[in-house]
């Protein structure tokens, strides 16, 4: 009871002055000492997202002991519904992870805080990030930036070096163009490795959320697109897109892709590659994690595949050799009451240090160019090979109606695989054309509805 009124009375004048100054200092510094609390929503990208986030935030929280960060992990399947509900109601977290195709839509709802030029500059600005993912931070027709890219994904070919060697095929030639790729797959199909027949190629068909991502590079490389230049009409039934889809589906029709793979999803195709079912698959960097993790920790490091694989680009079509490049951005919600603290945390998460650390946890790609080429990551040969293939990465058009458009494509193109599998009429170019015409019609109706 040092500071009881009775004791204060006993103090000398200098003592009272000291006590007054001490109280004043405490009163002025109290808000600064008060703990801040931030809520952040992220999607489950690693197996232990909660503990990985804790680890990722550890260095930042060590420097900011008064800060408390509450991490909520959303499942990708339900994240969109929760995020739109938060955006509509304004009752959401401070900081938010958004799929790169979602930023335009959520910012169109007026739910995101604009990121100023000074803030952008402080994290390196557009030039610090891969252009494909930077394009997702704003709507294609406006300059205002609403998010900063956090981590990325891209697609490339993963192939079995031993199978190519056994078939006497030079991978560089095989992945050169569509013609050489088809020839290589025909030559490889049915090769017997360790007594097991291997299929040339594996890709998922209908029951997969990545149907559109899987097809996009082939369409782009044929000179086609998913949307017209003015972003108002679907071009999924253009001659170029039709040519690409016919080429892509011909692998299944000709028996170079096992028909059974058409009812699998991407994860099952990845597993098939690990098990030696396919010589080539097109997938993302995440498979580098199991391929470099020992079996005792649930990985595939000791498998034949892990010891005999390499990475190649998509074979070039007539108009290019691009790949699909997307990922996740971080944004601050307009409703946040801690915008300054949120920005500081966002800046940390998109920093080189944090991105490199997160890549080591998730094997997703950094979005910062300097982080992507960090020596500690490039030391992994296969990672370096992968990063070498994604320079021609391309993102979807950043329009607010992309989500519904992709859903229409997902539904209709997924259904098209019934034709490819031969369970819905006879496969023909005309049948595919009719399916694509119906897709474009439905897509245009949805676009008209939402514009």
């Amino acid at each position: 009871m040092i500071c009881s009124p009775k004791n204060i009375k006993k103090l000398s004048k200098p003592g009272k002055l000291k006590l007054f100054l001490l109280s004043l200092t405490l009163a002025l510094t109290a808000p600064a000492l008060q703990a801040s609390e931030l809520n952040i929503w992220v999607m489950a990208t690693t197996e232990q997202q909660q503990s990985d986030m804790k680890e990722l935030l550890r260095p930042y929280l060590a420097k900011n002991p008064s800060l408390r960060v509450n991490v909520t992990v959303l499942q990708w399947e339900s994240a969109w519904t929760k995020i739109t509900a938060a955006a509509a109601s304004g009752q959401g977290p401070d900081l938010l992870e958004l799929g790169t195709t979602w930023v335009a839509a959520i910012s169109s709802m007026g739910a995101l805080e604009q990121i100023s030029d000074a803030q952008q500059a402080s994290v390196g600005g557009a030039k610090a990030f891969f252009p494909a993912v930077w394009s997702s931070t704003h709507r294609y027709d406006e300059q205002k930036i609403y998010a900063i890219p956090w981590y990325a994904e891209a697609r490339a070919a993963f192939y079995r070096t031993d199978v190519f060697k056994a078939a006497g095929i030079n991978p560089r030639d095989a992945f050169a163009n569509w013609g050489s790729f088809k020839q290589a797959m025909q030559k490889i199909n049915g090769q017997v490795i360790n007594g097991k027949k291997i299929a040339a190629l594996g890709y998922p068909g209908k029951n997969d959320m990545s149907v559109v991502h899987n097809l996009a590079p082939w369409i782009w490389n044929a000179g086609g697109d998913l949307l017209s230049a003015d972003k108002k009409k679907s071009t999924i039934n253009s001659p170029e897109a039709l040519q690409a889809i016919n080429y892509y589906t011909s692998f299944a029709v000709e028996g170079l892709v096992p028909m059974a793979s058409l009812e699998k999803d991407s994860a099952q195709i990845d597993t098939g590659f690990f098990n030696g079912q396919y010589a080539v698959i097109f997938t993302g960097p995440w498979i580098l994690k199991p391929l470099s993790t020992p079996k005792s920790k649930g990985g595939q490091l000791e498998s034949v595949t892990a010891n005999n694989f390499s990475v190649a680009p998509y074979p070039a079509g007539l108009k290019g050799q691009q790949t699909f490049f997307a990922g996740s951005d971080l944004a601050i919600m307009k409703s946040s009451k801690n915008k300054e603290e949120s920005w500081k945390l966002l800046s940390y998460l998109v920093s080189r240090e944090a991105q490199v650390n997160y890549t080591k946890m998730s094997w997703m790609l950094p979005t910062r160019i300097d982080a992507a080429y960090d020596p500690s990551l490039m030391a992994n040969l296969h990672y370096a090979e992968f990063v070498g293939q994604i320079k021609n990465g391309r993102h979807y058009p950043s329009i607010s109606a992309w989500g519904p458009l992709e859903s229409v494509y997902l539904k209709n193109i997924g259904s098209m695989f019934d034709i490819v599998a031969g369970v819905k009429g006879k496969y023909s170019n005309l049948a595919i054309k009719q399916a694509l015409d119906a897709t474009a019609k439905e897509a245009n109706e949805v676009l008209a509805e939402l514009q």
Partner: protein
Amino acid sequence: MMLAVNLTPILQGLYMSLLKLNQYTLNQFLDAPFIGLDNYRRILFEGHSPIRAGLGFALRNTLLYTLVVSIAAIVIGLAVAVLLNRDFPAKGVARTLLLLPWIVPSYVVGSLWGFMWQRDVGIVNVVLVDYLHLLDEKPFWLLGANSFWAIVIPTVWRAWPVMMLLFLAALQAVPEDQYEAATLDGVSKWGQFWHITLPILKPVIVIQFMFQFIDNVYSYNIVSMMFGGGYPGEWADLLMPLLTRQSFSYWMFGQGAAVSFIMMTLMLIFVAVWMRSFKRSLANDE
């Protein structure tokens, strides 16, 4: 108070179906542009509206799925209940084991059967083709027309045990002396089932059919999990997955609300008609 709690969400849903509610207007929620009955007009009369795409397939599938699943679950449940109502060793264990499918959550059932239906490694084809040699080659179950059966069979698999349990409980209430008298009169077991068991169980069957019907019309989980969130195709798409897709994937929340309201109205009509029939059948029994 209870009436208010029941009616408020319904009235709000009805009002939402009169709004142009999409991602641009969602943050205005109930202040979104009022468009009257336009959503209903587009759903019912505008052939090329996005919400109409696939609605015919979903309606057809839902009706067939609901009838097949409801009838199959009741018939199997009743048949097994009658068999289990007799005395035999380990009767309790048998009842418990038979109930297991019902305990599995519907999400898990969808995911589990999704693997079982796989063409090359799925257990269904392995048994049918490799062990029993009933088919020459392994068919697709998750692609094409077979996908209808791919959703029906797991739903029946999960639904019949609870029917069995309910019928078993109802069978306990059947007076034993009626069977004894019938046996003395020389009535066969089948005759006893037809003339004693079935009439006594009729109210339970009627009520269970109504519950099954409502439950299966609103079925979502099994389809959603079995097809990995993708489009289940024109033979396996049901009204609820379609509704979810239109509302949350196409972002046409107003039109989604209108379809929900149409579904709810149809269901209310069904329940009203059913209740009348049920009352009549009870009256006949008295």
